């Protein structure tokens, strides 16, 4: 499994989106998110975007007030994951129009839906923005 989880966390360390590709209990999740937030949010812009954590790596990137954190296996390509994060942000941007934290809070379901289009079983399966968004737009239209 390449990607183990995707988190979006705001500056205050509150989780805004959490998608796991392996089963964790609530307690495990709480502990994990706490540790990661503590580790990553303390870092500054001049430091690299990769953090080793337990037996895997976290690749993260900050966009405005929101941190995108992706937990990946050690042999995953870190730069590709950064590109993936950027793709995710661009996709959301295209859909919400200048996406912000509130968009994700109020449209969590849609964000999950986008992720489901992009990632399956921890593998990145779709990297074209229009392919990712077309089912969502269709659903929006019909509902």
């Amino acid at each position, binding site marked *: 499994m390449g990607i183990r989880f995707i988190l979006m966390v705001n500056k205050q360390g509150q989780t805004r989106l959490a998608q796991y590709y392996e089963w964790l209990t609530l307690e495990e999740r709480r502990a994990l998110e706490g540790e990661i937030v503590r580790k990553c949010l303390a870092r500054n812009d001049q430091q690299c975007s990769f953090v080793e954590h337990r037996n895997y790596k976290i690749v993260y990137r900050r966009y405005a007030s929101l941190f995108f954190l992706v937990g990946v296996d050690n042999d995953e*390509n870190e730069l590709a994951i950064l590109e993936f994060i950027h793709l995710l942000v661009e996709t959301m941007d295209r859909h919400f129009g200048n996406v912000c934290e509130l968009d994700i809070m109020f449209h969590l379901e849609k964000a999950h839906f986008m992720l489901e289009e992009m990632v399956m079983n921890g593998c990145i399966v*779709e990297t074209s923005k229009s392919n990712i968004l077309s089912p969502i737009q269709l659903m929006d239209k019909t509902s």
Partner: protein
Amino acid sequence: MASPSLMDTLFQRSLDDIIKGLRHQQTTESTFISKVIEEIRRETKSTDLQTKSTALQKLTYLNSIHFVDMSWASFHAIECISSPTFSHKKIGYLAISQSFNESTPVILLISNQLRKDLKSGNEFEVSLALDCLSRIGTVDLCRDLSSEVFTLMSSSKVFVRKKAIGVVLRLFDKYPDAVRVCFKRLVESLESGDSQTVSVVVGVFCELASKDPRSYLPLAPEFYRILVDSRNNWLLIKALKIFAKLAPLEPRLAKRVVEPICDHMRKTGAKSLVFECIRTVVTSFTEYESAVKLAAAKIHEFLMEDDPNLKYLGLHALSIMAPKHLWGVLENKDVVIQSLSDEDPNIKLESLRLVMAMVSESNVVEICRVLVNYALKSDPEFCNEIIGSILSTCCRNVYEVIIDFDWYVSLLGEMSRIPHCQKGEEIENQLIDIGMRVKDVRPELVRVGRNLLIDPALLGNPFLHRILSAAAWVCGEYVEFSRNPVDLMEGLLQPRTSLLPSSIRTVYMQSAFKVLIFCMRSYFVQMEDMTSEVPDLASKMECSESSDLATGKAPAQSDQDEGFNPRNSNQSYEDPSVVGAGDGQTSASAFLEEKGFTHESTVNLLNLMELAMGPLSGSYDVEIQERARNVLGFIELVKRDISNPSLRKEANLEREEVIASRIVEWVHDAFSEELGPVSMTAQNRVLIPDGLVLKENLTDLEAICGSVELPSSTSFSLRSPYYGESAGVSISNLQGEEDSDPSTESTSLLTEHRKRHGLYYLPSEKNEILANYYPPANDLSSGINANDDSQDLVKLTDQSLASKRKPSHAKPRPVVVRLDEGDAAADLAKKPEVKDDLLSGAIRDILLSNEAKPTSSQSNPSEKSSSKRKGKDKLNVDLPDSKENLAVGEQPNPENPSSRKSKHRGHGKEKNKKSRGKKNGDGREDDGEKEKQKSRDHHGRHKTRQRADAPLNVVSQTPVVPDYLL
């Protein structure tokens, strides 16, 4: 707030309301949430699906963001997915994906609904079901739904098809038999022109290959085509990952692939792809010099960039490269060393690893010195990283890189004093380990230990307690090397030892006891020295030495010339009391004069000990109490004789005096037994006697082992004087026998070492002088700044580059006792076992056994096998087209009816290549080849038949895998 119990439906709060509510109630979030959950619980009971699904939606949100338990609502989620309305379904599926797991009791209830949705005409419903299956698929679900997924894999809608392919990964993982159904279609999708599908399939194969690469070797041509033709970086990265796994298995493949990889590395502008190429090359193509050079150049580019990400990755790639191509690290050492003071701790850590990779015999001293200076100035975390990596590098492979152990031991002492040091346990282990392994270093070890022990400030730092314990043990065990045992004694008994945990305190007490025994014995020896006239010193010395050599015994003391060794003398003389004085007096007396054991000082020591032990005899800790009482008992026995000076003067040869001296002698005997390192595999070498039944379950051992503590000193028991008197001689004799007994492994090993490397056993006097001669490796007070440090380090590594070894070392490396395989066994780790799990077995079945009749209980084996063969043939036929530079003209005729089996083809190619190598001339050679080929075919078929019989018992074999790329 309106009462939620009324008209739930009408006044139900939506998710948005909850989110808004949460945003405005930061302070009382938890009460707000619990109120909302109460509402949700009520709402889920509603019969109206709209209400229910909204409630579920809210719960899912809270679960995802606020860690609210939602396992209780699993049945409601199932109700939602069975709703005909898409929006309800969507909410239900999201809830299920998020909250269901293997142990959810109702999970099997969704099987039917999933099947229904998988067959639905609405592609979004299908996709919901597929996504859900990929997240929560259990063995049962995967088994039940594999045929539906199989159908969807060839759906006409790309949207559905790619998701179905994505699900296959989960399917294979949980239910490996699904391979029989789906694998062929998966391979076919590789060839489909549709880019979306291909990228999913390659992703799936990338994951599969990372678990068991060997099974996918036959698909190498497909991946090769992607590697060469694709322009999609995502896809290329996956393909590279696959080849990184496949190449080490098949050298011919590696040879073939390395060029395209280098091409990508040169041409592409995408850093992610470049990095993947670098990583692939440095992990799996390390033999290809030019490729590694190119990778190193690219790494250098990364390191030169300002971007911390690239810098980190560059360092990371270097550390992958280091074990096989250290030159890559050395070329970039400037950057590496500069990065030690980078502001990013992760980069610092990577560069630290690299610096440690550069350590060699010749530069270890200097590098460690500079690193320790770094550590002093670093934050606690990095400081401990540095200390930890110094420790682990230096002890690697039984202290391989250490030449000068005196230096290393004093470095250990210094590191213990670094304020942030938290590596007590590791330092403790090494101090004791070195003490046991390296005889020559013991004087220095005792010196270092003493310095630690006498510093009362150190006792206040709990992280140092383990180190102090080791220091105490070392000083007790090797007290004969101490210059001032009284000093040691005071250190061991100082009041602040009450700060130590009881387990370590016991070590202190035992060590103090050892020191006491040593001092008293020295005193007695001195006494008898003065009183008894021993006629021929020289001959005695010789005698004891020659007996030493002749028997080849190597007790610790005898070679140290101080020679307080009762055992030797016991052999020469029957009477132990005479003996005590007998051996090695010259040095002993000189030694004692220096140390000045007068009667007063000995009595003082006894008093000091008694004073310190007194309160401890009432300790609540049984270990402490027991030891204190033992010591006190001993003191009582001895003191009577010794404390009365008049008695002593009048009758120092009388019975009482002799008794005290004898008791001391016996206890000393007990302590002077050498403790050697024990091989880790020592137990294995003990043959199990016949009739001994070893328990399978050792749980009741817990009760016994629970109380065992750290390597505390040799256990002893103070016997009653009556017993001792009668048994004294036999005890010493016994020990003599034990020593000569070859079956005591460590002793005999030590003896052997001594025999073989006798010249390395320097006399201790000389040793000490040398030890003094060494300047301290690290001056704590020297305030060199970081820049100086890094420059130093640059210079150092320069040196290490320029001169591989320092021309000569000040002194030869002392012998390090090393227990043959015993120590190596630790490094060996577990051999990577080829895990032939169900999945790889099934896949190999399919990929390799085209002509074997499938014996599996599948519905339509004949159809399957034939189509499989078709797929296989296609694979093969494709190949020559894409590789023109294959043995052109010598290609096996594709229409040749005899080559209907892929294996023929593979071998045929091999044959052609070979015969081309022989300039195609020799017909007989060809015949021979054909013969071989036939037999090989036969072999292959035989194997496949075997496999068909027992599909899970797959032999790991390369020769059967045809080499498609050549």
